[in-house]
Every structure is written in C-alpha cells, then in structure tokens.
C-alpha cells in the first residue's frame, strides 16, 4: 500500500520497489487512499499501481490499474476481449470519463487542499491530545496522509465511541475487534507494538473536502463528554 489504510503512514514505496526489482519480483502498489491526496509516482521500480475513482470524489465502482510496459498479467474476466483482452466486458464510458475528470480536479486542487486539510487535521489531533488525558496518536505525526487522524483512548473500546459520536451526527470508524468482521483487533496497531487492550480504543477520523474548521470545533466540543462517560463506565479506568 502506498499509504497505510488505518494510520495513513506514507510508506517508502520507492525503496520497497528497489528491493523487489533487485530480487526480480513484480511490485504492485495499492494507491487507492493516496491518489489525489498526495503525489503518487510510478517510478521505474513500480510495475503495477491501483487507484479508485470514489476516493477522488468520482463515480463509485470505477478504478484504474497502471501497468508498466512489459509487465505481463493474466486477465481474470474473460469474454469479449475489451481493454486489450485484459478485462472483458463493455466499458462503462460515463464512469471512466467521470473518473478522468475527478482525477483532473484532484490534481489541480491537490496542493492547496492538502495544506488546508492537514492544518484541520493537526488542529483536530492537537485538540484531542491536549483536551483528553490518556490519549495517543497512532502513526507518524507528519509522514501520513493529510486527511488521516488516528487516535486511541485508553480504558475504552472503539465501537462504543463511534456509536456515541454517530448519535451526535459525526461519522467515524474504528479498527477495534468489535467493529471488525473477524472480531480480531487491528493487525496494524498490534504490529506497531500497541497492546491488545489499548488497540481496542482506536478511533479513525478522516477529513474530506467538505469538512470545515467548524466541524473540527464541533468534534472537539463533543468528544470529551463521550470519552468521560465511557471511562466512567469502564472497569479498566484507574481510580
């Protein structure tokens, strides 16, 4: 992945690509979350890269695969031989054009929007870390997607946080075991050395082009009471 799906860390893709090339291994990069938000470069070390339209505010259900010349791939959809036999089925022209337009707009606005969103994100993260005790940022403070904030709250569980925020009109997500289909805690947070119990209290906040300073302020006003209520209820909270 170009950027980690949970904590937004920008991965050293070029270096990984060098290793893959050195070992003569094809290198495919999932850049769905990164494309349109940060510059994504298909250097000589990247053979394949996937991007999607809906993550750039384009029509849902459309994506693109970059294929370096000379990279051999097997089609998984056979039939009419469209797209040079790589993906059969009539092309969805309207969505393809829509994706192209959304990519064009994302590129034009990328620099200014990344600056605006990362400033909002930093305000959000700093506000949470300063306003609520026993709270930590997951992932790198700077080398992350501009729209990604992932924080964790000790002694409480993520699903109960997102349910509570949802009742206040704020949509968020969590990687706690309770919110996953597998009922396992986040492998990403565990790999980062965070304990199972602490990983349960993770909250993922992603900002978008429609988010404003007022939205961030509303969240910062709303969150402390929710965290307090859940901590009052938790047997893990020290007293």
């Amino acid at each position, binding site marked *: 992945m170009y950027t980690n799906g949970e904590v937004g860390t920008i991965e050293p893709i070029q270096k990984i690509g060098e290793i893959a090339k050195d070992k003569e291994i094809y290198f495919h990069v999932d850049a769905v979350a990164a494309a349109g938000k940060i510059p994504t470069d298909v250097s000589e070390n990247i053979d394949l890269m996937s991007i999607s339209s809906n993550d750039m505010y384009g029509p849902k259900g459309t994506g693109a695969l970059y294929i370096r010349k000379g990279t051999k791939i097997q089609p998984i959809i056979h039939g009419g031989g469209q797209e040079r036999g790589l993906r059969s089925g009539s092309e969805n022209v309207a969505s393809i054009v829509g994706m192209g337009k959304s990519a064009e707009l994302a590129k034009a606005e990328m620099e200014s929007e990344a600056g605006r969103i990362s400033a909002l994100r930093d305000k959000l993260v700093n506000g949470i870390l300063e306003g609520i005790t026993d709270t930590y940022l997951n992932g790198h403070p700077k080398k992350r997607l501009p729209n990604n904030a992932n924080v964790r709250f000790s002694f409480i569980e993520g699903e*109960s946080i997102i349910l509570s925020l949802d009742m206040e009109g704020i949509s968020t997500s969590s990687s706690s*075991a309770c919110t996953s289909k597998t009922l396992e805690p986040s492998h990403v947070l565990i790999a980062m050395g965070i304990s199972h119990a602490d990983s*349960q209290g993770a909250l993922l906040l992603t900002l978008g082009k429609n988010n404003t300073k007022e939205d961030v302020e509303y969240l910062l006003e709303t969150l402390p009471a929710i965290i307090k209520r859940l901590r009052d209820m938790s047997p*893990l909270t020290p007293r």
Partner: protein
Amino acid sequence: MYSDKVMDHFKNPRNMGEIKDADGVGVVGNPTCGDVMNIYIKVKDDKLEDIKFKTFGCGAAVATSSMITELARGKTLEEAIEITRNDVADALEGLPPVKMHCSNLAADGLRAAIEDYRKKKGGEKDD
C-alpha cells in the same frame, strides 16, 4: 445494526456503577476480545437486593450488562442463576448474530457474581 432497545440501554444504562461493599463480584471477558464486564451484587434473604455493573466494550456489551441488572434485580439467587444469554438478547429485542457470542457476557457475569457470593458465604461458615 442495533435494535432500538439496545440503543436505549447503551444511551441510558440502568444501574451503572460499582457496589463498594458488594457481597459478590463477577468478572468476565478480557480486553483482548474487547469486552470486560464486572457485575456487583448485594444479597439479602437469598434475593438480589442490588445489582450494578461496569463494562468495557461495545454497544452490545453495555446494553446486555444494563439489561441483566433489570432482569435480575429482586429475583432469588435460584431464579437469577437461570437467566441465560438468550433471555438477555430476547429482552433487548435481539442482537446482531456476530455479537451473540462475544459481547453477550452479562448472564455469565451474573452467574460468576453469584458463585463468588456463595464461595464467600461458604468460607464464612467455615470460620
């Protein structure tokens, strides 16, 4: 995904808190799976005079803890120990299937609290 009843108990949990001089305490679950439940009971004349809970966990974990306190309060220990996970889920107008096993711990918590009470009482008799 949750019934209105679950959301009601999540928003306004009944009997949340700790009983400092509890006669029995049941602790079930663990933070790794994401749910920890403490059930505190006060027993008088073999009846549950008071019951409270503290819970770390998802919406279903909180709602089932809250519901068991309502189902069990005032019951005799014999009656209370018969309350099953399904009784709790039914009283909450159902739980999502995935939550039936992991978060539906309240009946186990109550049983653990009653066992703790009986063990302590047994110990007192021996003194």
